[in-house]
């Protein structure tokens, strides 16, 4: 039980930071006299949202997502490898180079195929 106390403290600090920041901005913010209609919209990196989210997406996103997963999974393997590479020695380095090179070749293929072009 003792070992859980730091986590509880951490949780308390983390949530109080959130409440503090929101509370502070509530006190300090500038109040507009009349609310413009754009304020009610979903915040989309400054773009004005068009329609709702339940639409068919362009298949282009699918290729981008695939290429993203390629490197996402690569990272998932690289992190545990990086933690242990000293103990594992030269063999692990060669192994990882082979792995990364194969994935890079896949990326080169996607790049040359124009999968990442957005026309």
């Amino acid at each position: 039980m003792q070992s859980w106390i730091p986590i509880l403290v951490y949780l308390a600090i983390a949530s109080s930071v959130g409440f503090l920041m929101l509370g502070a901005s509530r006190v300090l913010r500038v109040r507009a006299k009349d609310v413009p209609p754009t304020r009610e919209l979903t915040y989309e990196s400054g773009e004005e949202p068009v329609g709702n989210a339940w639409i068919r997406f362009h298949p282009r996103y699918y290729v981008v997502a695939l290429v993203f997963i390629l490197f996402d999974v690569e990272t998932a393997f690289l992190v545990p490898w990086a933690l242990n590479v000293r103990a594992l020695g030269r063999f692990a380095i060669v192994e990882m180079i082979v792995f990364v090179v194969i994935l890079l070749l896949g990326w080169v293929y996607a790049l040359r195929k124009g999968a990442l072009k957005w026309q």
Partner: protein
Amino acid sequence: MIIPHFTLNDFLPVMPVGVLMAAAIVLMLSEVFLTSTTRTYQAIIAALASIVAGGIAVNNAFEPARLVLQGYAVLDPFSSWTTAMVCLGTFLAVLLSAGFLKHRNAERGEFYALMLFAAAGMSLLSLSAEFITLFINLEVLSVATYALTAFLRRGPRPSEAGFKYFILGAFAAALLLYGAALIYGATGATKLVEVSAALPAAFAKSPALVYAGLGLVLAGFAFKVAAVPFHMWTPDVYEGAPTPVTALMSAGVKAAAFVAMVRTFLFLVKGIDPVIPFTVFSLLALLTMVGGNLLALPQRNVKRMLAYSSIAHAGYMLLGVAALFAPKLVEAGAKVGVLTATPLTGTAQDVSVAVYKGLLFYILGYTVTSLGAFGTISALERREDETRGNTWDLERFAGLAQRKPGWAAAMALFMLSLGGVPPTVGFLGKLFLFSAAVDAGLLGLAIVGVLSSVIGVYFYLRVVVYMFMRPAPIDAPAPFRHWTTELALVTSAVLVVGLGILPGTITEWFSRVGMVFGH
């Protein structure tokens, strides 16, 4: 942390896969970096890679059986021979594809790359000795074949076939994985050797869990080998896929799945009443032999007929698998310890060696014959027929003997081999397999096998009758010619006759003791 130590020895069994993968990557990159108009060189690269990989595999087949890569894989003659046969099948399928794709103006490096990826998956599947490894290799093989099935996107048929194969294949893979998870829950291990050691205790504690796991794993494999009643997808997928891909699926995918199934279940039956696996495999064999042949009977579409025939042939192979679990062999094994390093002795050992020989030789024979048969069909197909329904109708074969005697003779040879008529490899395969089954005490099943293959002779010979005894229609298509197609067909025909007459050395290689690790 345990630091693994690998020697070069550990990588011996995956060397062929390395060659296949390297060639596949080269082919993919060639597609985006080279822009030459002729692409025959891609087929040549792929064919050479399969020859080299097959050569390495044959060399590996004379290594003593052992576990490698920390027990995740095995190096034994059984898997090495399977890899060699997969490479032979890939070699022929690549050559067939070259002409086939050129005729359709669809030659792409990715096609050959996918074929090589599929072959790599098949080789790895045959040597997996751990459930996660097994599952991933099954997926490597499956994803490549899903993509190949729908590679030619003309008309609704390829997409239907690809979609059906993908949905049902994913479902079967999930069944297998769920089964493996249940077995892991019961035994706490995923490596087959450890599972086998922990099974008797797990079985005593929670039999329902183990039975459920074994049943699900079996269902997953039965789907891949297209055993009745898990065969529904086969005719549609085989018909819709490009014909060289169908050839590769019927030969390679099936062989790899069979070998993986045999390996897995040799480890998984420990602690279980030996009657159960024997009964289950016998029942599957019975249903598949009879069902496949009966379903092929009314087919006028030759490609569909061959798809059902591949189900029937899976049934004969299942007969061999059932023979491995015959009470006679299992009892002998119980005395000396099946699944330990101690080999069987006396007659039991002879029978077990004969069964493995029969299985491997049957797979080899079916590989060369079905590649030849599908290859001839692929050469007779016309690109313009793809949207019509009669591409593979029997009428298309009418009078082929007068117009193209060589092609007709080759097709007749492949049909006779599928039917099991001497002096072809199909006859010898059946002879070895059925006599081994009789030795193992499966007299009744062997009789059913012979009778059902008599049914098969009817629809195989019907093709021959059409080719030789019917007049040709006026607008009959001539086969398209390409040197790679002809090379593939000549190679298959020579192997069908050659192995049928002089099987000597090969059978000697296939009947060595210590064929399968731990058995």
